[in-house]
C-alpha cells in the first residue's frame, strides 16, 4: 500500500530529463558533431575547400543546442554553469578555424611572456618554449580532446550498455560469462590497463578509443546490468513478455528508455574521466602525438622547461583549460542528477 500514498494525485510536473522534442534535438546534435568529428579525424586528408567550409553548419547548431540546454535546465543553476563551460569549449572547437588566430604550430618568438609584442604579433597569453602562440594553441587544443573523448565514451557506452543489457536481462549463463570477463578487466587499475593497451597498440587517437573502451566498458556494463535487474521485474516488462515480444525488443524498446536518466548522468561523469585519461595519457607520452596542439601535450612539452615562476604560465594555461572542461562535465552531471531526483 506504500505506493498508494501518492495514488490518485496525478503528478503533473514534467520530468526534466525527458526531452520534449527528441528528434530535432538529435538532428542538431548530429549537425554539430559529424562535421567536427570529420574535421578532427580526417581533416588532414580533406581537400582544402571542404576543410574550409565543413565546420560552418556546426556553428549555428552548437549555438541552438546551448540555447535549448539553458532554457530547459534553467531551474538548476549548477546544470546551466556546467552546460556553459562545456558549450564554451564546443563552440571554440567548431569556430577555431574562423577565429582570428595565428597558426598554432608556427614558431615566432620562444618564451615570449604574456602580453608581449614581438615579430608583429601580440602574444596575449605568451608563447611556449618554441615560440608558438599559447592562446592559439590552447584554443585549438580543445578539438582533439573533445572529439576523441566523446567518441571513446560513446563507443565504450554502446558496447558496455549492450553487454549490460544482455547480462542483466538474460541472466544465467550469459550473465556469468559476461560478468567474469568484466571482472578480469576490472581487476586492473585503470592506468595500468591504459599503459598496457596503448603500449601494445601504439599511441594514437583511434587506439585511445580502443583503450578507453576496454577500460570503461566493463564498469558501464555493471551499471547497465544493475539498472536492467532493477527494471526487469517491473510489470510492464512482464506484460511485454506475456505478449511474446522478442527479448531484443524488450531490452531495447522496453528496458533501455527507462534506464536513461542514470545513464545520462553517468555518461556525463564518464566524459569527465575520459578527458582526464586522454590528457594524462598524452602527458605520459602514450596518447596524442605532436605537432598539433593538445592540452596534455602542452603540459608534457613544457614540464622540462617551465619549472620557473616566470614560465609557469605554459603549464597553468592548459591545466586550467582541461580543468574547466572537466568541471563542466561534472557540474552537468550533478545538475542533471539533482533535477531527476526532484521529480
Amino acid at each position, binding site marked *: 500500500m506504500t505506493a498508494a500514498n501518492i495514488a490518485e494525485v496525478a503528478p503533473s510536473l514534467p520530468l526534466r530529463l525527458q526531452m520534449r522534442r527528441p528528434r530535432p534535438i538529435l538532428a542538431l546534435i548530429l549537425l554539430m558533431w559529424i562535421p567536427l568529428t570529420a574535421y578532427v579525424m580526417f581533416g588532414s586528408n580533406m581537400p582544402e575547400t571542404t576543410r574550409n567550409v565543413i565546420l560552418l553548419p556546426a556553428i549555428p547548431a552548437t549555438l541552438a543546442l546551448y540555447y535549448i540546454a539553458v532554457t530547459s535546465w534553467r531551474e538548476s543553476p549548477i546544470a546551466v554553469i556546467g552546460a556553459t563551460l562545456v558549450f564554451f569549449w564546443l563552440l571554440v572547437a567548431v569556430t577555431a578555424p574562423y577565429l582570428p588566430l595565428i597558426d598554432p604550430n608556427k614558431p615566432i618568438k620562444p618564451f615570449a611572456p604574456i602580453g608581449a609584442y614581438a615579430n608583429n604579433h601580440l602574444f596575449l597569453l605568451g608563447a611556449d618554449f618554441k615560440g608558438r602562440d599559447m592562446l592559439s594553441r590552447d584554443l585549438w587544443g580543445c578539438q582533439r580532446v573533445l572529439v576523441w573523448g566523446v567518441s571513446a565514451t560513446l563507443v565504450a557506452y554502446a558496447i558496455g550498455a549492450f553487454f549490460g543489457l544482455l547480462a542483466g536481462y538474460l541472466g544465467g549463463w550469459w550473465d556469468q560469462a559476461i560478468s567474469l570477463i568484466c571482472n578480469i578487466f576490472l581487476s586492473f587499475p585503470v592506468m595500468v590497463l591504459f599503459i598496457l593497451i596503448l603500449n601494445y597498440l601504439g599511441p594514437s587517437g583511434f587506439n585511445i578509443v580502443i583503450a578507453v573502451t576496454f577500460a570503461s566498458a566493463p564498469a558501464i556494463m555493471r551499471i547497465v546490468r544493475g539498472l536492467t535487474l532493477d527494471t526487469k521485474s517491473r510489470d510492464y516488462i512482464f506484460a511485454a513478455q506475456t505478449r511474446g515480444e522478442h527479448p531484443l525488443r524488450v531490452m531495447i524498446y522496453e528496458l533501455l528508455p527507462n534506464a536513461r536518466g542514470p545513464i545520462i548522468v553517468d555518461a556525463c561523469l564518464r566524459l569527465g574521466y575520459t578527458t582526464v585519461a586522454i590528457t594524462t595519457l598524452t602527458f605520459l607520452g602514450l596518447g596524442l602525438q605532436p605537432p598539433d596542439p593538445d592540452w596534455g601535450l602542452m603540459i608534457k612539452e613544457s614540464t622540462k622547461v617551465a619549472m620557473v615562476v616566470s614560465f609557469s604560465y605554459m603549464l597553468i594555461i592548459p591545466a586550467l583549460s582541461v580543468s574547466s572542461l572537466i*568541471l563542466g562535465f561534472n557540474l552537468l552531471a550533478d545538475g542533471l542528477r539533482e533535477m531527476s531526483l526532484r521529480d
Partner: protein
Amino acid sequence: MLKLIGSRLLQMVFIMGVVSLILFAIFDSDKFKKQIAVAELGGFAVSALSDKDYQAWLDKKGLNTPFYVRYANWVGAVLHGDLGKSFEKNEPVSGLIAERLERTGVLAFWVFALMIPLSLTFGVVAGMKEGSAQDRVTSFISVFTTSLPEIATAIFLTVIFALTLKWLPANAAMVNGWDWRALVLPVLTLVLYDFGYVARMTRASMAEVMSSQYIRTAVLKGLPYRRVILRHALRNALIAPFTIIVLQLNWLLSGVVVVEVFFQYAGFGKLLLDAALFGDVYVIQAATLVAVFVAVLSQIISDVGYTFLNPRIRFA
C-alpha cells in the same frame, strides 16, 4: 563467509593466471623484441646486426623460445619466488619491485592517513543536514576538487608552493637521500583529488540514512540527537564509504603513475611506466601482477567487509 572468501581467492588466482598469459602473448611480438634489443645494444648496433646475429642474440636472451614455453618456465620460477630479471636494469625483478613498492607504500599511507578522516568528517557533517550551508559548502568543494585532474592539481600546487613560495621542493626524485618535504606535494595532490569523491559518497550515504524511517523511529523514541547520530545513523551510514575507501587502493595505483612521473618520485607507478615504454617484459609482468593482486585483494576486502558490517547479509 568462508565460502565467499574462498571463491573470491580462487577467482583472483584465475584472473592473475589469465592476465599473465595474455601479457606473455602480447610481449611476444617482434616489435617488442626489437625494442629490447635497441634498448640494450643501442639502435645503431641493432641495425648493424645481421639477421643471423640478431637471432643469436635472441637465443642468448632466451627470447626465441615460444611464449608458452617461456610462460611455463616463468610460472614455475614465480612459484619458487623468482620473478625474473629486468632487461633494462639487469637486476632481479623481485628486489626492484619490493624497493619501489615500499616507496609507493609510504606515499599511499600518507594519502589514506589524511584523506580518510578528512573526507569522512566532511561527508558525515554534510549528510547530517541535507540542504544546509555546511552541506552546500562541502558539495561545492568536493565537486571542484574532483574536477581537477591530478596533473592539473600537481601543476597548481607546484607553481604555488614550490615555484612562487619556495616552501617545498618541486622535485621528489630525492637523489640526495630521503626528504619528507619532497613527499608533501605528491601526497597533497592525491588527497585533493580523492577527498572529494569519498566525501560525496559519504554524504550521500549519510543523507540516505538520515531520511530513513528507522532514524525517524529513533528521533520519535525521544533519544538525544547525539545518540541518534552516533549509535543509529553512523553505523549504517559508514558501510558504503568503507567499501569505497578500500576500493580506492585500486584507484590509487592509477593515480600514482601520473604523480610519480610528474614529481619524478621513484615509486611503483614510475617503474611500471618506464618498463612499459622500454618493453621490459618481466618487470611489466611482475608489476601488473602486483597491481592486479592489490586491486583484487582490495575488492575481496571490500566485499567481505561489506558482508561483515551488514548484519542483514551476515545473518541471512
